[in-house]
């Protein structure tokens, strides 16, 4: 039994934390709501190697595991970074046998977007290369992107119409499914980071802010709300680690673990962000405070790649089919 990060992963997490703390922030997520650029942006993510963590070494990536990527994604989530490592993780799976495209993913020379159905797609804004499943085949092509006024501007959401698609892999349903599960794990990892940060910010304020002669964190209503949010974050961490581990070490468990992690991430982040606002009182719902930026991320992410209801249904289906026995 060794269900813990190893030293390399701990080091990678520390490095990623330093990088994202320097290169991204809620302040930049706030600016993005008024047309500011994404931070750190694709270029910087490519340069530090984060877009290629799970790209094969011979395609210029690091050939790492999904768990390696998840520990970095957590730090990205903590700073509301964009574009998302979800897209990098998912595209790396889809492009496993396409070394040139995979290299362009890793070095940032192409901006990828993976498109499901007709809803808004993650990282569509600014993308130049679109991947989709059409009639069971993996296709690649250009795309026209329609933007809206999304709750969270760091997700680069856009509705995509593919242009000039060509088939990359015929009969790619299984590949697509695995890539989607990997995306669920990466998204849950980013949400883990955001949720953990929201709790941390809430806890810090609860220690500092006084009312009626004592720190508000000494009141059970505040304390217990933060504790419940924290307990959720720690449970989410376990599900994310399990799912990321399963992607490489136990692929049969991936669908159950990925759906579990994503379902739990949606609700855990939402609760953490709402708790963060509530703990802050009036200041917590002002534009200038960071709390609403975590909340915006929560409101968008809970719907991305299927909401909790969708994934609870998936989990039920797998459990009914004997996934736990």
């Amino acid at each position, binding site marked *: 039994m060794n269900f813990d990060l190893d030293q390399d992963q701990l080091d990678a997490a520390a490095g990623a934390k330093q990088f994202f703390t320097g290169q991204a922030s809620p302040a930049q997520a706030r600016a993005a709501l008024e047309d500011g650029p994404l931070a750190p942006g694709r270029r910087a993510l490519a340069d530090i190697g984060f877009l290629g963590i799970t790209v094969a070494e011979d395609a210029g990536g690091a050939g790492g595991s999904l768990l390696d990527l998840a520990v970095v994604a957590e730090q990205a989530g903590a700073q509301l970074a964009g574009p998302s490592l979800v897209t990098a993780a998912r595209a790396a799976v889809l492009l496993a046998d396409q070394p040139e495209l995979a290299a362009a993913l890793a070095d940032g020379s192409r901006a990828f977007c993976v498109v499901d159905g007709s809803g808004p797609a993650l990282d569509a804004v600014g993308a130049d290369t679109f991947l989709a499943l059409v009639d069971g085949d993996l296709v690649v092509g250009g795309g026209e992107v329609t933007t*809206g006024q999304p*709750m969270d501007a760091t997700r680069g959401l856009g509705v995509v119409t593919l242009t000039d698609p060509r088939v990359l892999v015929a009969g790619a349903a299984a590949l697509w499914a695995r890539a989607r599960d990997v995306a669920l794990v990466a998204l849950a990892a980013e949400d883990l980071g955001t949720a953990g940060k929201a709790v941390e910010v809430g806890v810090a304020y609860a220690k500092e802010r006084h009312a*009626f002669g*004592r720190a508000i964190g000494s009141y059970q209503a505040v304390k217990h709300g933060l504790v419940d949010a924290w307990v959720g974050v720690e449970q989410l961490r376990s599900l994310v680690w399990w799912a990321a581990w399963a992607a490489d070490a136990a692929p049969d468990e991936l669908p159950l673990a990925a759906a579990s992690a994503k379902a739990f991430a949606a609700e855990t982040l939402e609760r953490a962000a709402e708790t963060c606002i509530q703990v802050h009182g009036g200041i917590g*719902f002002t534009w200038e405070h960071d709390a609403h930026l975590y909340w915006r991320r929560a409101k968008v992410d809970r719907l991305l790649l299927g909401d909790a209801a969708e994934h609870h249904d998936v989990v039920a289906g797998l459990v009914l089919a004997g996934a736990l026995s």
Partner: protein
Amino acid sequence: MDFDDTPDEAAYRARVRDLLAQHAGDLVHLDAGEEAADAGEQEQALRRTQRVLAEAGLVGVAWAAEHGGQGGSLAQQAIIGQELARAKVPSLINHIGIGMCGPTVIAHGTPDQHERYLARLLRADDVWCQLFSEPASGSDLAALRTTAVRDGDDWVVNGQKVWTTLAHVSDHGILLTRTDPDRPKHGGLTMFVVDMHAPGVTVRPLRQMGGQSDFNEVFFDDVRIPDTERLGEPGEGWRVALTTLLNERVAVGGGGNDLGLSVESLARLAAAKLPGLTAQRQVLARQAVGRAAVAALGNRYTGYRRLTAISQGGLPGPEASAGKLAGTAAAKLVADAGVRLLGDDAVFAVGTGDDEAGRWQRNQAWLPGIAIAGGTDEVLRNIIGERVLGLPPEPREDKHRPFNASGSTR
């Protein structure tokens, strides 16, 4: 038991409806959620509307006749509110002045203050705001730090207020200050009427997470207030403020109205969207719509019980806090059911944001504030627990310490 007007109430309602029809040409009319393009024009139109209504005897009806009111009942005031809504006339611009500031001036002001302020307030010649909350004193109002220091016939005020509704259009405000920091926190406060146009007063709109600005920050920088503008004795400010807060409860009332988008708008959205969902999603959406509707109806009919108490001459008690608590919970269920029906559309909101998706998105971003503004859920639960259920309060170490020495100054 019935939901009808008494004969007296029916007659009063008919008279109000008549007056509103008669003056319709001079009143602003707006659909719910609609706003005028120009804020300045809007302000002037709202001031004019209130003046017309005041002249028709429809403003401050529950105030005594000697102060310019009609000596009427809270039930009559509720009827006017319902009829204004029915006629699509927006809330009075001076609702804070009428509901909170005016009653405070009446209770604690001098005859001279009554003379100078009340009639103008009812006509919206002056708009009023309430300057209590500060960055470091939200739920714990008595921890405020804005100081007023006596200087000859004046007091000199320095500090900052926040969450001040209408400050940006106000002419006067009631201002709670600390005048004796050596006394325990509740004991060193004094209330004033402040001229919002006086030198040293700066008003800055406070932007909320949804982008709108319902509140302001107000800065006081060596603002001089003549001692004649004091409300009540020095050191009696907390007692004066309690008058204001009691009247706030009367004004807010927990009347069971929907907060945010109404359950009726959820019903319309559901009727439009549900047929397009998969069978599985229909089952789940119906659960969410049903649950939200039950919560909203429970809150609405509980509001009718409170209105009944008022109509029988009662005053809203601490149980009115339950109305806000339940209203907030219902509003969250309504908002979440709506967003669930809209799915991706709600987060994405293609277009101008004026469409259905944009409305629900804004509603969602406005909601976290309602569990905080006007009393956080936590404070309301304390109020109900202690004043309705009779549960003991928490130990308070801050009440009797000199304010200077208290943790509240951190």
